[in-house]
């Protein structure tokens, strides 16, 4: 009884929270910021659902955008064809589309996953990569789906997309977290760790892999179904390989297997490039511009940094602090080198004549952040760990008891 009360209360809190987010965003944010909030939720859903496949079950899927696209195009097609002629209001329609989009994406996941997941090894990676491209090219050439021009999927009045997307993100997190909290998650983790041992312990390896893949695909499809009407007009370019790649990066960054990590990385990696892009917008603070020599020195600096961090990690053993000092030393040395290098490069006229703004360099900065993060924390932000209040409590207690000792 108490269980159901708690469960009901938490669901209510989530619903109200997402509703308030929607109200607040609609009332006080610019359309651009609204889309930021919306897509942040979308990337959390995509990253966490891909984490179910890649991180928790250990199957390397690299075409997650394909299922996102299938969900979006299912919705777009159905909306363009039927929305005007049916009686549902826009919220109910989008919810219906979420069901349709996830079912179609799930079926596609089954068709792609079943043959490739039966095999050991990296077939899934190859197949999903190819599938992502094939789907995009097929859509580009199908008139009924708008071809490369795109398709109009306006739902009037505008549905509460931010609320729906964040509900989906939270649902995705809840599904993965519950799976890991109950014994039902163990076969998934076991398959990731060792397929042969898993099957010897009675785990039906193919079934587990396909389940993870189909559920992950369905969640991506659901995200696509919410995305399409928000975007109003979608084209195949919205779902190119970059999308798959960025979601995959989020999972790896977050620490494969960690739900919390994927969610945090999803937020950060989506918002960081957007933040850097903002710097170009008129009205925001004047972009910091960096001269050509600094850029050239910076590129060399990255290589040096990578090398130095490698050396530090291989050579410096000892306490955590000593290792941190080593890492900081490497960073400081690189910074100094970049500074001196850029001074020296000022002598090169071709380089001196060029200035870059932060916004122009955003992808380069983004790449640098990724590289540095991977070097410093190869297991991702969270490693295999999960965020939990208990864990924080334990850590604090340990710290205070350590101080006493």
């Amino acid at each position: 009884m108490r269980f159901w009360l708690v469960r009901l209360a938490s669901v209510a809190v989530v619903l109200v929270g997402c509703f308030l987010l929607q109200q607040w965003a609609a009332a006080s944010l610019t359309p651009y910021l609204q889309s930021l909030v919306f897509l942040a939720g979308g990337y959390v859903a995509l990253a966490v659902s891909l984490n179910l496949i890649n991180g928790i079950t250990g199957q390397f899927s690299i075409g997650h955008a394909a299922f996102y696209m299938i969900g979006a195009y299912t919705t777009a097609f159905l909306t363009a064809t039927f929305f005007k002629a049916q009686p549902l209001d826009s919220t109910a329609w989008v919810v219906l589309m979420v069901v349709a989009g996830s079912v179609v994406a799930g079926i596609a996941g089954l068709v792609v996953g079943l043959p490739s997941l039966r095999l050991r090894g990296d077939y899934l990676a190859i197949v999903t990569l190819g599938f992502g491209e094939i789907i995009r090219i097929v859509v580009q050439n199908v008139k009924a789906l708008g071809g490369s021009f795109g398709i109009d999927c306006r739902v009037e009045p505008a549905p509460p997309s931010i609320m729906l997307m964040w509900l989906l993100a939270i649902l995705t997190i809840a599904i993965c977290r519950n799976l890991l909290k109950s014994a039902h998650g163990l076969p998934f983790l076991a398959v990731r760790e060792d397929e042969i041992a898993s099957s010897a312990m009675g785990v039906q390896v193919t079934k587990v892999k396909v389940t993870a893949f189909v559920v992950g695909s369905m969640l991506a499809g659901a995200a696509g179904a919410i995305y399409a009407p928000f975007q109003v007009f979608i084209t195949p370019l919205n779902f190119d390989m970059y999308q798959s790649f960025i979601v995959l990066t989020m999972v790896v960054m977050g620490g494969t297997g960690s739900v919390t990590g994927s969610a945090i990385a999803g937020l950060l990696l989506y918002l960081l490039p957007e933040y850097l892009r903002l710097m170009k917008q008129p009205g925001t603070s004047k972009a910091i511009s960096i001269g050509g020599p600094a850029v050239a020195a910076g590129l060399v600096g990255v290589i040096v940094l990578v090398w130095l961090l490698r050396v530090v990690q291989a050579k410096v053993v000892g306490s955590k602090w000593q290792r941190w000092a080593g890492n900081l030393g490497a960073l400081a040395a690189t910074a100094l080198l970049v500074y001196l290098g850029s001074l020296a490069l000022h002598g090169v006229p071709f380089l001196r004549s060029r200035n870059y703004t932060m916004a122009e360099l955003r992808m380069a900065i983004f790449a640098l952040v990724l590289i540095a993060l991977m070097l410093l924390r190869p297991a991702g932000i969270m490693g295999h760990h999960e965020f939990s209040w208990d864990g924080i409590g334990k850590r604090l207690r340990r710290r205070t008891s350590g101080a006493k000792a």
Partner: protein
Amino acid sequence: MSENATPVLRLKEATIKFGGLIAVNCVSFDLMKGDLFGLIGPNGAGKTTCFNLVTGLYPPTSGSIEFMGRDISGMASAKIAKLGICRTFQNIRLFKALSAVENVMVAAYLRHRTGLGSGLGLLPSAIRETKELRRQALELLDVVGLSDVAEERSGDLAYGRQRRLEIARAMATQPELLLLDEPAAGMNPNEKVDLQQTVRRIRDDFDKTVLLIEHDMRFVMGLCERIVVLDHGEEIAQGPPDAIRNDPKVIEAYLGAAV
């Protein structure tokens, strides 16, 4: 035990070829309920391959394998585990990133009852069952003496402990027949004595039938009641330890391997 009781495990001329190599050649033996059976032979004799055949990793090229009177040759590994055969691995195959107790719970999960849906919703039934599996797992860790490291990452455990964890994990599937592949490898003499007791206890207190591979002669001779000897995939002797010890073919196989 009467002569015509169904054997727990029966290999009938089981054979497997890898390309030109005949790894196991017409091997036949019966294990009766409650046997503590040894499988020995020089390196590369085909012992592990026998386990792989019995647990469905490979289908036999010819011959058959019966478990409790049922033909299991070529059946999927997971299904064989469900029927009641479980094994440990010579080259330890733990789920390294999982804790010791989670490793055992994976295996105990085989006998679970609630559906995936209750897990995804974290319903009371799933929570209760998770607790129950955990309790079972902790009990088994106690049997092999690993209670103190239950929450530790299994990949970080000492070698001997990893081997014992493999045994606890296999036990958790509640098998009728337990296959142990070199359980004492890499253990020190004290650990080996403990292990002998554990294996005996598994047979006596838990009513299992045990088939074990081991290179340490003292270990096998002191523990097993019957022994099969393989050499180059062929069965060269079968019988109680004393007979095996004095069998000229066995002596030759071992000396031949040693020279």
